[in-house]
C-alpha cells in the first residue's frame, strides 16, 4: 500500500476520534435526563435515581466516553433506553432501508448531473445549455421535502403508479422494495443533481480551454472524441470532490425525506430517538453517519490517485 493511502488512513482515524468526542460532549450537554424522561414527570426521585445508576449515567464523563468507545470497538453499542433492545440490532434493521435509499439517490444524482453537465458544456451558450442551466437553478431552489410532496401528488395520488409512503421491505422481492424507495430517492437526488450538474459543466468548460484540447484537435480528433477521451477524465477531479461532500448532505436529507414518506430508516430512527431522549441511540446513529461520510471522502481521495497519475508519483 502506498504512503498516500496510509497517510489518508491516519487522517481518517483522527477525524473519527474527533467526531466521537464532539458527538459525545454535545449530547451529554443536552438538557433532559434520560431516566426522568423514561419514567415520566411524576416518578419518585428515588426511582429516577435508581434508574440513573442502572443506566450508568452516574459515572464520570470520561469513564462513560471510554466505555462507549470500547463498546464501539467490540460491537456492543448497549441497549436502547426506550425499546430496551440492543442498539446495534435497531440500527442494522434500519440500514437495510437507508443504505439502498442512499445508493439509489446517489445513482440518480450522478446520472442526471453528469449527463446534464456534459451536455450543457458541449453546447455552451446555446439554447440547450441555457435551458438546462435554468432548470438546475430551479432545482437548487427547491426544498426537497416540498418537491417530495409534489412527487407524491403526481405519482401516488393522481397517476397511482407508486405508493405515497411506507416501505414494502425486501422479503417480497427486490422490485417491491426499490419501488417504494423510488420517489424518496428522486426527491433526495434532485437538489444534489442540480448542484453537481453545474459543477460538472464548469469543470468540463474549464478543461475545454486547456492547450492539450487544441493539441488533440490538431491531431484530427473530432470535438466529441476530444470530449470523451481527453476532457472528461481531467474534469472528474472537482466533480468527485463535490460528490463526496454531497454524500453527507444526502444522508442528512434522509432524516427529512424518511419522515415525509413514513420510511422506517435510519433517519426516522434518529428523529424519533431525539424526540424520546433515547440519547444512546442518537449518539450511535450520528457516529455511524459521521463514519460513512468520512469513509466516502477517503474513497474519493484514493480514487484521485487512480484518475490522476500526477498524484501517485509523489508517494510511490
Amino acid at each position, binding site marked *: 500500500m502506498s504512503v498516500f493511502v496510509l497517510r489518508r488512513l491516519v487522517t481518517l482515524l483522527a477525524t473519527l476520534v474527533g467526531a466521537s468526542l464532539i458527538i459525545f460532549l454535545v449530547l451529554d450537554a443536552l438538557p433532559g435526563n434520560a431516566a426522568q424522561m423514561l419514567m415520566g414527570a411524576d416518578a419518585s426521585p428515588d426511582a429516577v435515581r435508581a434508574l440513573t445508576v442502572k443506566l450508568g449515567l452516574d459515572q464520570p464523563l470520561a469513564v462513560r466516553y471510554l466505555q462507549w468507545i470500547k463498546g464501539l470497538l467490540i460491537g456492543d453499542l448497549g441497549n436502547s433506553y426506550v425499546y430496551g433492545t440492543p442498539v446495534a440490532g435497531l440500527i442494522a434493521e434500519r440500514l437495510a432501508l437507508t443504505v439502498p435509499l442512499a445508493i439509489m439517490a446517489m445513482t440518480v444524482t450522478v446520472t442526471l448531473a453528469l449527463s446534464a453537465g456534459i451536455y450543457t458544456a458541449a453546447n455552451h451558450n446555446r439554447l440547450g445549455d441555457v435551458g438546462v442551466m435554468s432548470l438546475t437553478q430551479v432545482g437548487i431552489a427547491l426544498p426537497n421535502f416540498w418537491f417530495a410532496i409534489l412527487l407524491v401528488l403526481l405519482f401516488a395520488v393522481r397517476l397511482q403508479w407508486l405508493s405515497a409512503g411506507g416501505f414494502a421491505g425486501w422479503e417480497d422481492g427486490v422490485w417491491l422494495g426499490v419501488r417504494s424507495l423510488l420517489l424518496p430517492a428522486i426527491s433526495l437526488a434532485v437538489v444534489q443533481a442540480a448542484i453537481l450538474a453545474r459543477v460538472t459543466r464548469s469543470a468540463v468548460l474549464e478543461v475545454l480551454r486547456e*492547450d492539450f484540447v487544441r*493539441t*488533440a484537435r*490538431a491531431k*484530427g480528433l473530432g470535438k466529441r472524441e476530444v470530449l470523451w477521451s481527453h476532457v472528461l477524465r481531467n474534469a472528474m477531479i472537482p466533480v468527485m470532490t463535490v460528490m463526496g461532500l454531497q454524500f453527507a448532505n444526502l444522508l442528512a436529507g434522509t432524516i427529512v425525506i424518511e419522515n415525509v414518506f413514513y420510511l422506517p430508516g435510519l433517519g426516522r430512527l434518529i428523529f424519533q430517538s431525539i424526540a424520546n431522549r433515547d440519547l444512546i441511540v442518537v449518539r450511535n446513529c450520528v457516529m455511524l453517519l459521521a463514519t460513512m461520510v468520512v469513509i466516502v471522502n477517503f474513497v474519493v481521495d484514493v480514487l484521485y490517485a487512480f484518475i490522476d497519475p500526477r498524484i501517485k508519483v509523489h508517494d510511490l
Partner: protein
Amino acid sequence: MTSPATAPLIEVANLGVRLNTSRGPAQAVRGVSFALKRGETLGLVGESGCGKSVTAMSLMGLLPDSAVVTGSIKLDGGELAGLPDADYCRLRGNRISMIFQEPMTALNPMHTIGHQVAEPLRRHRKHSAAQARKEAIALLDRVGLPDPARRVDAYPHQFSGGQRQRITIAMALACEPDLLIADEPTTALDVTIQGQILDLIADLVEERGMSMILISHDLGVIAENVQRMMVMYGGTVVESGPTDEVFRRMGHPYTQGLFRARPKLGARKGTRLKTIAGTVPELADLPSGCTFSERCPLAIDACRAALPPMVDVGPGHFVRCIRTDVSMAANVGALSA
C-alpha cells in the same frame, strides 16, 4: 496545367479572419496571400497580436466557431476554407500537423506519452494498438527522447520542457504530414534547448521533404531556419520575400525597426535596446491606411489615407509601403551592417 512538381502544396489567397473579441469584432487577418511548394519553408514574423497565429490556426481549421474566414486556402488544389469539421479532421494530424508554443500544457496530463503519440496513427492509419505503440517508440527515438522503449508508458509530468517538445514533435510527425506548422516552438524553452529543438525540426523537415511554416517573433530564428519569410503587422503582411533577400535589404520601416530592436552581442555595457515607439494597435480599432502609420517615423498623410499596395523591390521581394524610396536608402539589413 501546372505539373505536380511545381504546383503549390498550399495556396492562400486573400485570407481574412474576423474574430469576436471582448472589445468587439476585430479583423485579425486581412489580405494575406502566399503559396508554398512541397519541401519549401516559410517564416512568419511579427509581434504578438499581429495575426500570425490566427493565420496558422485558420490553416488548421481550428479557429473559434464565431470566427469568420474569407478568401481561400487550398491544399493540393482542394479548398479548405469552409470545409466541414468531419472532413477537416481527416487532414489534421495527417496531412497538416502543428507544433505549439507551450510544451508544458500541450500534452494531456492524464494519458501516457505513448498513447498520445500513437493517437494520430490509430486514427488516420487505423493501426492496431500494438502496431501504433511500436511506431510511437520509433518516433520518440527519432526525435531524440532517451530510452523511448521504457519511457513510452510514462506521463507528461515526468519529462522536462525540452523533452515534452520532442514528444509533441513526434506526435505531429506521426502520420508524415505534407505541411508542418510550428507556432513559436522554442519560445517557452531554455535558451540552451532552443537550438537543439530547431535543429531537430530542420533535420526532420529535410529528411521527410515536408513543407514548413515557422512562426516566431525572433528574427534570428527566422533567418536561420526558413527559405522565405513574411513579416506581419496589424493583421496584414507588410513585407515578404526570400529570407536572404529580406535580410540583405529590409524594405519596410517596421521590419527595420524589428531588426534594430534585437539585442546584440558585444554591445557596450549600458547601451539601451532600441525600441519601436508606440504600441501595437488594437485589432478592434486599426487605423485606416497603413497599419503601421501611427508608429512609423516616415509616415506621411498619404500613408494614413489608404492601405499601401505591395511594392516589388527585388527578386520575389515585396514591401507594403509607399516610402520605400526613403526607407530602403538607409540600407538596413544584416549584410549591410
